């Protein structure tokens, strides 16, 4: 995500950071480039204008010009303005002392759904056609189910062929894939389905019935999936207003495609004028969107972005944090989200057990395999690497094939139990057998073993560190390890003088130790 915008920002900042002293003209020039970059990223014209004006005023007015590191100062101003643009600072205490333990993540966030008591909390989803409402309904239900809420999904999209069926299938998937939490219920009235424009109003009845059904079955949350509609279609917008009037949803969410162009603002405005929106969900955020909608919508509607859709699978819904996204845009990584994802997948005990094994240098291929699987559950390699500071902006140039991990799994599966426990057993003949068994080349097997060796070595060294410093150490370790873990083909990275060698890693490690 944000690939291009991040690159452009980095260009601008690099130019200006190189200078010991900057003049007013330098800042104006830099802001011109920032303006172009934002416009090319589909940020709304007026939002860009006011953003650039504000940054410029702040940099000229403040002590940027006189400061020792004017480039850094400017980056900070841009950072703060971007955060503000997307919804302001969260009350998130970045406690430096907590860095080496698990950071305190329970801090309140801008994301999420507010619940009413007594339930059910009525959530209405609306948006243009193809924005991703139905898929998002499924993802949201999955999130809520995990939280232990009893959820009902109601199919109020009576127009798009098979939309009702799609939602029903999604409900089935949620119940199948997520074990914890009460079963998600599904409500539909198939006889009300009709062609486009022929069932206007019928959705109101369906929603009303769904609401009373949800009450009867004591659901905590009822999610209404409405049909996609154009913000200029008066009949259909009227239908939404009728639903609002009839059932009084507690939360109205606008689902917006993150790749929408300048028109994003118009449709968001129109929906917001017709309905009292509570929040926005941005979808398809795993594309190479340059983030125009993310940066504009909040500003124009004044409504917070609550969630981001980041993939096709049910668990690909992230809570939106303005600061973290800003960091990602500016190529500073997002370690906090990464740690959160890890925490979702690994229990403290599991992590501890593994850590002890690693510290003792006793990690086996089986442990490695389960690590790999855990990592995959956290998301795609690309999305994970993108959260590491310093790597984010290089990811776009990387050609990471997720199937490499499949191959790695296949190789490990082709090993005997003894081999998994002790990779030193592997001689040429065993390697050949494994490569045949897994459909790979003997060199791939060798490469994996080498990579594994590095990881267990790293494990020993890092055993004294906390989670965050590990992440940092990893990012300093460089990318070669990641690729050799994935079974070969090191990706070509344009690493620009970053310490990517083991010695760099060691140095950093020592520094951290000293600081403690």
């Amino acid at each position, binding site marked *: 995500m944000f690939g291009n915008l991040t690159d452009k920002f980095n260009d601008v900042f690099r130019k200006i950071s190189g200078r010991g002293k900057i003049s007013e003209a330098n800042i104006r020039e830099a802001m011109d480039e920032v303006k172009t970059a934002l416009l090319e990223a589909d940020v709304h014209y007026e939002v860009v204008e006011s953003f650039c004006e504000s940054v410029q005023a702040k940099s000229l007015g403040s002590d940027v010009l006189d400061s020792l590191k004017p480039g850094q100062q400017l980056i900070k101003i841009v950072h703060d303005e971007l955060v503000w643009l997307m919804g302001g600072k969260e009350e998130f205490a970045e406690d430096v002392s907590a860095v080496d333990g698990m950071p305190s993540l329970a801090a309140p966030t801008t994301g999420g759904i507010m619940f009413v008591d007594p339930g059910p909390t009525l959530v209405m989803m609306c948006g243009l056609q193809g924005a991703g409402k139905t*898929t998002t309904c499924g993802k949201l239900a999955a999130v809520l189910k995990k939280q232990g809420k009893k959820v009902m999904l109601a199919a109020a999209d009576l127009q798009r062929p098979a939309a009702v069926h*799609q939602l029903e299938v999604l409900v089935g998937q949620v119940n199948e894939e997520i074990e914890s939490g009460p079963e998600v219920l599904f409500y539909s009235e198939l006889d009300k389905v009709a062609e486009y424009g022929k069932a206007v109003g019928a959705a109101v009845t369906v929603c009303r019935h769904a609401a009373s059904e949800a009450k009867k079955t004591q659901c905590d949350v009822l999610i209404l999936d409405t049909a996609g509609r154009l913000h200029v279609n008066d009949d259909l917008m009227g239908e939404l207003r009728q639903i609002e009037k009839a059932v009084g949803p507690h939360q109205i969410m606008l689902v917006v495609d993150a*790749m929408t*162009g300048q028109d994003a603002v118009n449709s968001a405005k129109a929906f917001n004028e017709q309905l009292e929106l509570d929040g926005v969900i941005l979808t398809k955020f795993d*594309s190479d969107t340059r983030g125009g909608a993310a940066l504009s919508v909040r500003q124009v509607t004044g409504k917070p972005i609550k969630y981001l859709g980041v993939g*096709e699978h049910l668990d690909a819904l992230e809570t939106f944090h303005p600061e973290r996204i800003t960091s990602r845009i500016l190529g500073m990584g997002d370690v906090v989200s990464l740690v959160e994802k890890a925490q979702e997948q690994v229990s403290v005990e599991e992590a501890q057990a593994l850590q002890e094994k690693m510290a003792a240098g006793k990690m086996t291929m089986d442990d490695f395999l389960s690590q790999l699987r855990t990592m995959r559950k956290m998301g795609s390699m690309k999305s994970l690497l993108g959260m590491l500071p310093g790597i984010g902006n290089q990811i776009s140039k990387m050609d990471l094939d997720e199937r490499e991990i499949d191959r790695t799994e296949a190789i490990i599966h082709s090993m005997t139990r003894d081999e998994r426990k002790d990779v030193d057993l592997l001689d040429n003949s065993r390697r050949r057998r494994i490569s045949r068994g897994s459909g790979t080349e003997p060199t791939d097997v060798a490469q994996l073993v080498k990579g594994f060796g590095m990881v267990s070595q790293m494990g020993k060294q890092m055993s004294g560190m906390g989670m965050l410093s590990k992440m940092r150490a990893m990012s300093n370790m460089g990318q070669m390890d990641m690729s050799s873990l994935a079974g070969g083909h090191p990706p070509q990275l344009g690493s620009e003088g970053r310490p990517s060698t083991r010695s760099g890693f060691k140095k950093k490690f020592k520094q951290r130790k000293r600081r403690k």
Partner: protein
Amino acid sequence: MGLFKAAFDKLKQGLDRTRSTFVGEIRSILSGKPLSKELLSQLEARMIQSDFGVKTSRELIKDIEASWERDEIHTGDDAMDYLKELLNAYWPAENRTLNFAKTGPTIILVAGINGAGKTTSIAKIAKSLRDDNKQVMLAACDTFRAAAVQQLEIWSERIGVDVIKGQQGGDPASVAYDACEAAEARGIDVLLIDTAGRLHTQKHLMDQLAKIKRVIQKKFPDAPHEVILVLDATTGQNAVTQAAIFAQSIDVSGIFLAKLDGTARGGIVVAIREELGIPVKFIGVGETPDDVEPFEPNTFVEAMFAQ
């Protein structure tokens, strides 16, 4: 070919919003005023807001400015006429009709990102081909998204054409192959292949698409005769990136620009032309299967600037 009748009025109707905002504001910006730097920068802002793209907008403005400096145009109204001329000049004579197979069934592969409007667009193409007395068949190769197959099935019932479908979670390429065989066996004229929506950033999914194409070619070496990319007209400059990456993997031969009735803009059409040179063959201007038009640049520009 006479496949579609270019209905100027309908296009105008579909573009009504485009027209009223784009031209309405352009008119009020330019009309009855002498040209000035200020006026041109207002025009540029308006064009960027219409998704023309920063580069294209600035180039067009530069052209207008140059003409102004050459003393060829003097007023805002002159500039408007000149802009129309410039826009028209973007499109060379190119073939925007569907390419049909010389013998055997014509295979049309349809792709696009999630939610672009592939299935609806296929229904529209299928309906107009059927209205043109062609034997049409659909292949539901979106085996990934929940109920995608049913969605296409419902469309096939509504417009009265056959559909070949696969299992949810099955291999889309094998469905495509089966459909090719069925098309030949049943003597079908045109086979439209619907594929799952995929983000162009997902390399493995793009590879899967390339595989579908290869498998089709196993059956018919000269197929697919058309590779249509469906783009959502409300998408911003990302549409250009999408088209470029899809073109790399499956050699797109034409673009179906969907949801053009929803956008206040339409400038993206120009950006695509400028950056990629892939012809826009159809535009979708509404929700019913009849709401499709062949893309005619002159008509399009006329409609944008019509009174």
